[in-house]
């Protein structure tokens, strides 16, 4: 019966870690190359005793890790630079420091996945999932409290009787040949069969189709769309209820929103200069608010002291100084008008600044003008 089987290896069981250490060294010394040692726990120094070569697994990990790093950078480059070039916080489009964490993660991910996959595919010869040592008394012993060594039959120095004698000479407790299991040898791995592949493909297509249907169709159908359709009119949608067909209504004519007086002189700067007077007192509060608002909205172009040589110098045409006689002789109403509707390249600031804030800024500008053109009387 046993003669029909193919010999895999000769196994030997030892009882102590010192014995297995000695056995490993002797096996190497005897010139065997295809052998293995099995111990129930890692025995320190075994790598050296077995004269194991460095595992090539590291190279796979390195290669795929490098690919991961490049993939991550490519992904971020294509999305952040090519497809969606947005200015985020004034950073460059390709801010390397910010991309390093992502690159690191993808590198680690691909390197570890590569290690596992190459171990399964290359070293364990996927889809093979059996080994002649599985399910043998030998494996049961070495995974509980014994130490085992096997010399495989395809070792060039292998000779059935010699190896048996060799192990006995080393003081092995038992020496037994291990055969391939015929059932396992002849097993066909169904993983590459057309039926299996077809089944897998059908499942994949079905799941994809169902997911697509659920996410794109089902959730928009009654009753899965829950409260998506309601009786009320929604903004921007047409309506048959009103004559003009709009669902949004205009306010009653002449309505003025709170704190939002319409500006009446937008057509005529001269009229504005004549009619409008600064309603505010020159006091600490108004000057302070004016200073803050001026520094926020005006200083980027006009500079903190109003001379027009500011931080944005060079990116826009320089505004003229606020200290010329022309500007100093303007009435407050004219400056108010300019802030409200803009002038030349200067845009309107009506959206950013309330009426009161505009007057406060004007108060502050007046203070600046006086400070820059102080007379001797002011020094007193």
């Amino acid at each position, binding site marked *: 019966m046993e003669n029909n089987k193919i010999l895999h290896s000769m196994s030997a069981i030892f009882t102590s870690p010192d014995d297995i250490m000695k056995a490993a060294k002797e096996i190497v010394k005897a010139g065997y190359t295809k052998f293995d040692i099995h111990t129930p726990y890692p025995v*320190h*120094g075994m*790598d*050296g005793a077995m004269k194991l070569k*460095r595992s090539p697994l590291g190279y796979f990990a390195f290669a795929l890790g490098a690919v991961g790093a490049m993939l991550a950078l490519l992904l971020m480059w294509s999305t952040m630079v090519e497809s969606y070039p947005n200015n985020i*916080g*004034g950073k460059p489009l390709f801010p390397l*420091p*910010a991309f*390093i964490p992502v690159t690191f993660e993808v590198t680690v991910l691909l390197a570890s996945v590569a290690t596992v996959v190459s171990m399964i595919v290359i070293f364990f010869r996927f889809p093979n999932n059996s080994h002649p040592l599985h399910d043998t008394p030998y494996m049961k012993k070495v995974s509980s409290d014994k130490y085992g060594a096997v010399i495989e039959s395809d070792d060039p120095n292998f000779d059935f009787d010699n190896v048996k004698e060799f192990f006995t000479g080393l003081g092995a407790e038992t020496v037994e040949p291990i055969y391939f299991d015929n059932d396992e040898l002849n097993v066909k791995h169904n993983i590459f069969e057309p039926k299996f592949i077809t089944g897998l493909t059908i499942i994949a297509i079905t799941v994809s189709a169902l997911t697509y249907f659920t996410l794109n169709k089902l959730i928009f159908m009654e009753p899965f769309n829950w409260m998506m359709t309601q009786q009320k009119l929604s903004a921007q949608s047409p309506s048959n209820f009103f004559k003009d067909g709009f669902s949004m209504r205009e306010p009653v004519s002449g309505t003025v929103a709170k704190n939002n007086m319409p500006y009446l002189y937008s057509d005529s700067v001269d009229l504005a200069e004549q009619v409008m007077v600064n309603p505010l007192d020159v006091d600490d509060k108004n000057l302070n608010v004016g200073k803050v608002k001026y520094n926020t909205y005006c200083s980027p172009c006009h500079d903190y002291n109003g001379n027009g040589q500011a931080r944005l110098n060079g990116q826009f045409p320089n505004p003229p100084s606020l200290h010329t006689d022309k500007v100093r002789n303007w009435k407050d109403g004219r400056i108010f008008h300019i802030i409200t509707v803009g002038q030349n390249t200067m845009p309107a600031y009506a959206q950013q600044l309330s009426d009161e804030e505009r007057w406060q800024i004007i108060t502050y500008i007046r203070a600046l003008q006086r400070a820059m053109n102080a007379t001797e009387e002011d020094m007193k």
Partner: protein
Amino acid sequence: MSNAQDLILYEKKAIPSKIPLIGLALLAIGGGLAGYGFSTDSIRASYSLIIVFMTLFSVGFGALFLVALEYIVNADWSVPFRRITEILAGVLFIVPLVAIPLLINLDEIFTWLNPELVNADKYVKGKTPYLNESFFMIRNIAIFVIMIIFYFLLAGRSFKQDVTKNPKSRKTSAKLSAIFMPLFAISITVVAMDWLMSLEPKWFSTIFGVYYFAGSVLATLSVLTFVVISLKDNGYLSKYINEDHYYNLGGLMFAFTNFWAYIAFSQFLLIWYANIPDETLWYVDRGDGGWFIMSIALIFIRFGIPYLALVTRPSKSNPFRLKIISVWVFLAHIFDLYWVIMPEYTKRTGAEGPVFGLTELSVPLLIVGVLMLVIGLMSKNKNLMTVGDPKFKSSLEFHL
């Protein structure tokens, strides 16, 4: 280890007396250069002396940390090297001496002691409850005292153990180490903040203590590795120390190289990304002029090159390669501190880019001189291995 001859694990052999003499000579040259520096530009010389002070502090305090770490985790691998680590911790006696010229010169070194500058900046003014001369003195002297006490508690007990062979000593030391660890963490953070971070009093980074700690352990490990391999090669240590023992030193050095890079990058990334002027000013100082090249070089000197040099397995255990790498790593630590400290000097003087001259040349001379002197003197009349430790024999049989 069956026959009788093999049972001699370690034979005591005194380190040649020329080691402390060479150290003394280096100290004299370095001291002369530093003295010359003080006579020409006392601020620059003080800043250089801070590099010496902080490097020696890293080595000494880091050594005490490694000793305590071994006790706490009950490690086997480091037992053969522990005596060398304890001897290196003896640097702690020199550290306060190096600090004396600095403490005398305190007004010149720290801008936060200048009342005009403090009043001009509300951020610095807000820090005066911490950054003032008396509290600075109190906490630093307290740290020196803690260092010395724990040197005697941890290393001193170990020296005694050589004679008494008391196996219970390890357990008591483990308890003492557990008390030492939090004190160590606080002390090293305070020292890093006081002597390095406060050079730019406006700047702050909460991770800075960890940054200095990562560098400190690297410095200690590199000196330890170099000393152990040199002693072993010349037959001063047990002949049973082999490449498997070295592997741990190399591995730990590799781990801390990565840790340093992780911490340094974390500090940079958050500050760079938030882009707040109060925080970025420190990096702006190091990104301007010639310092930019230094900053880029630091990435490679401190991380890139040691990483590649230590990544493979043989490089972590081959004595010759380890020796070269450890010298590199130690010099990289000094360079790191130079990069942290000197931009503050060039900023004060308005110099463009890094300065290097005779004053800075005194830094490595003084450091190496002190280390050689300490190793020579501290090892006198001592075993170079912890022969009284209950784990001594088993640790020598350590295999990967």
